[in-house]
């Protein structure tokens, strides 16, 4: 029998997940290993298709656990047999425990920031013109000098975008201050969606976090924010396999 693995938690009372239907409606149950427990359900296939129902089934179980503890989710599609799962839990025992310690009592909050990329590019171009008012860089010949000048402008433009993108990430972290215990940030300055941030927030700090985020949004109305959460701490499961 194969097992579909949803998440790992600290030890849970037997029967804690009996009422949580998992992938394809299969009943969830616990595999206890020392003071750790993996939440699983039985599957009769080696591979779980990526369908809306399956993805939502995975999320439903992990989210259900979030109401009673702080789970470390497995990535979607983790199908193992029981000896493999037990071996994983035993060989990664200390790193899983320290990761659970890191996220205990916390939830993940997600913030995506969208900026007006075309406007930022225009500003970069205007700055460049201000620095080169005589337009010397706009040589029309195809000389090596003109080529190198164009290359230099391209690199400088990308560098300015990168700076601006990183400044958004730094600014947001400063705004959120102590309400965030940890953060994972992905900055993509060449895209409209410039920043995807996951914030690890203690449950007791959620009100403070939301207030700080609200103030940040009001302060920068040229940016658009997409927020969601609370999530199980999916982005804070960095255990080396």
């Amino acid at each position, binding site marked *: 029998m194969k097992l579909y693995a949803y998440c790992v938690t600290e030890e849970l009372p037997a029967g804690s997940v009996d009422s949580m239907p998992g992938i394809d409606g299969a009943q969830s149950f616990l595999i206890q290993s020392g003071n750790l427990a993996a939440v699983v359900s039985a599957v009769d296939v080696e591979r779980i298709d990526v369908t809306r129902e399956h993805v939502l089934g995975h999320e439903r179980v992990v989210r259900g656990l979030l109401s009673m503890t702080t789970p470390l*989710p497995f990535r979607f599609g983790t199908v193992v047999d029981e000896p493999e799962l037990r071996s994983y839990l035993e060989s990664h025992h200390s790193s899983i425990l320290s990761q659970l310690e890191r996220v205990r009592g916390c939830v993940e909050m997600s913030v995506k920031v969208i900026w007006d990329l075309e406007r930022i590019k225009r500003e970069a171009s205007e700055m460049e013109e201000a620095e080169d008012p005589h337009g010397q860089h706009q040589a029309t010949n195809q000389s090596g000098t003109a080529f190198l000048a164009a290359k230099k402008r391209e690199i400088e433009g990308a560098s300015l975008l990168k700076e601006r993108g990183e400044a958004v990430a730094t600014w947001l972290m400063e705004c959120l201050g102590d309400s965030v215990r940890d953060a994972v940030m*992905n900055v*993509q300055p060449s895209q409209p969606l410039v920043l995807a941030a996951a914030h690890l927030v203690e449950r007791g700090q959620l009100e403070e976090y939301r207030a700080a985020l609200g103030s940040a949004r009001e302060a920068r109305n040229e940016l658009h924010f*997409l927020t969601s959460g609370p999530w199980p701490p999916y982005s804070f499961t960095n255990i080396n396999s």
Partner: protein
Amino acid sequence: MADEALELLEENELSLLETLDHVLNRGLVIAGEITISVADVDLIFLGLNVLLSSVESAQEAFGKRGARSVIDDLNRDK
């Protein structure tokens, strides 16, 4: 990007995209046992940027009708 379009994204698509991003792209991996791979693809960036582009294109194409009626049309076509 018009706020109207972004608000529609939030209503219609963000929740599912966020779920996909979290569930498919993150979480513990038991080496060798993951049966799907989306490594090196950040789904939320991929998905949202595609959506942002498609909504912008739709707005350009449909002009003054606005994003709401365009998305209503798209939903009717499904």
